[in-house]
């Protein structure tokens, strides 16, 4: 294992966050605060409670999940795409670094950054609504699994994309709708019956449901199913990355 290389790439990526502090940390906090103002205060005052939890508190796990997913995705996809775009990827590909090490470093850095944002949002939310975390261990499990899984997915997108448009395509046109429709802001039991069934095809539902359960003990689907689907998603991402490195797809002609 080339630990120096992992460390180098990891801190290189983290240094980018430091340079773009406004964009990386401040903007997600601002947008979360806006969500609280709009959904929590303005609309939430008309929806008193969801499953016995005040609406403002109910959306906190969903908001954190939404940030974890989009941040992991954009950090990881940009992290690997940018050196491909500038051409500096040659250094990594010609260094004595294995693909596993490259993945650990890039995905680790992206997941760390999104986790930081997640923690900041949790702290911010604490100022707006009373929070309780019934199952802290499970909360951390879902928190970590989600940031890692979406960082892996972002890594795949960053390798697949040939231009900035493609880079934005998956996050904006697929993941954001799935996250919004996956119950970030509502319980799927609030939907008409037919849509409840359709919603179950959305993988994000399982992540949010499990995460919310760890806060309030309320879930749309069972914990086992949530965990199972999350692991399945993680495994699928790992398999795709394994395949990419096996074939040299878009990295080594």
């Amino acid at each position: 294992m080339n630990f120096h290389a992992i460390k180098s790439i990891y801190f290189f990526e983290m240094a980018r966050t430091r340079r773009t502090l406004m964009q990386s940390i401040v903007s997600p906090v601002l947008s979360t605060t806006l969500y609280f103002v709009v959904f929590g205060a303005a609309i939430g005052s008309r929806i008193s409670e969801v499953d016995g939890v005040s609406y403002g508190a109910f959306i906190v796990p969903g908001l954190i999940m939404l940030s974890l997913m989009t941040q992991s995705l954009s950090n990881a996809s940009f992290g690997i795409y940018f050196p491909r775009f500038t051409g500096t990827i040659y250094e990594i590909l010609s260094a004595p670094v294995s693909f596993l090490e490259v993945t650990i470093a890039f995905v680790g850095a992206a997941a760390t950054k999104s986790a930081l944002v997640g923690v900041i949002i949790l702290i911010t939310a604490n100022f707006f609504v009373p929070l309780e975390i019934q199952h802290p261990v499970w909360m951390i499990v879902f928190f970590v699994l989600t940031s890692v899984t979406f960082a892996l997915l972002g890594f795949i997108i960053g390798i697949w994309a040939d231009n900035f448009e493609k880079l934005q395509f998956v996050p904006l046109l697929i993941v954001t709708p799935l996250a919004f429709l996956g119950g970030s802001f509502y319980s799927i039991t609030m939907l008409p019956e037919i849509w409840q069934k359709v919603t179950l095809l959305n993988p994000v539902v399982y992540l949010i449901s499990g995460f919310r359960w760890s806060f309030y003990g309320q879930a749309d689907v069972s914990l086992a199913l949530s965990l199972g689907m999350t692991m399945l998603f993680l495994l699928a991402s790992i398999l795709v990355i394994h395949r990419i490195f096996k074939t040299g797809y878009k990295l080594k002609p």
Partner: protein
Amino acid sequence: MSSIISVRDLTKTYDSGFSALKSVSLDIKEGEVFALLGPNGAGKTTLISTICGLVRPTSGTITVGGHDAIKEFRAARQLIGLVPQEMPTAPFEPVLNTVQFTRGLFGLPANPALIESILKDLTLWDKRDNQIMSLSGGMKRRLLVAKALAHEPKILFLDEPTAGVDVELRHDMWRLVDKLKERGVTIILTTHYIEEAEEMADRVGVINKGEIILVEEKAELMRKLGRKELKLVLQEVLSRIPDNLSGFDLVLCAEGKTLTYTYDTQSERTGITSLLTALSDADIRFHDLQTTQSSLEDIFVDLVKGQQ
């Protein structure tokens, strides 16, 4: 000298079906400066990229310092520093960080003293805190060299190190190559500039259309293929070469104002004396003469043309 890089029957066919390398075999000796010449698209960069691990070979083997470049890629790549042809740089990174980053990639602990001396050698130390995008083209080129040297490689690949750089930087590069060679670093450079190969290389390889068509000691190559030309500038215009001179390899040019005699410097008799005697017999007078040696460039052009 033993060979530090050994390439055997290497082929590379890209997914598009283009075969960039056709069964290339090549040995690079430890400590030499090897110049790889070839026209655009000949396979120079593909060959280098395959050895460095940027391109996956279709078949064949590569060993670097006795290590298989694929099975023992860590040991093999540890020995190699690569300065690519394009100048890919991370625009927002500070100079010093990016050089330290490269050293880290090669699994080595930080060594500030070494990095400082490399940057000073390449006159980049004053720029160490600048963002890369603020550097000039020549500085970026030097920065890429600094990065390639950050892990103290035993082999340095310079892919067209002087393409599009000014004369001063080109001479700086040459001096750098000399210095590295003294330290025992093996250097492989690709170039369009024959002058460069002539100046620096110990051995020359010519690649064309994915095949190595020649590998030779530079001096030997110049000797073997070296022809000399004797140019005689005539006092009076000649309409044709007189019959008594037909035995000589003469060409009348410049509208009959010059006679060019081509001869082999290696043969026992160059025929110059008898030519001059014959000229005087034919009463042809000349007011100037000059001799020129064919350069590596002529040799190269001949070779590539000969293959077509």
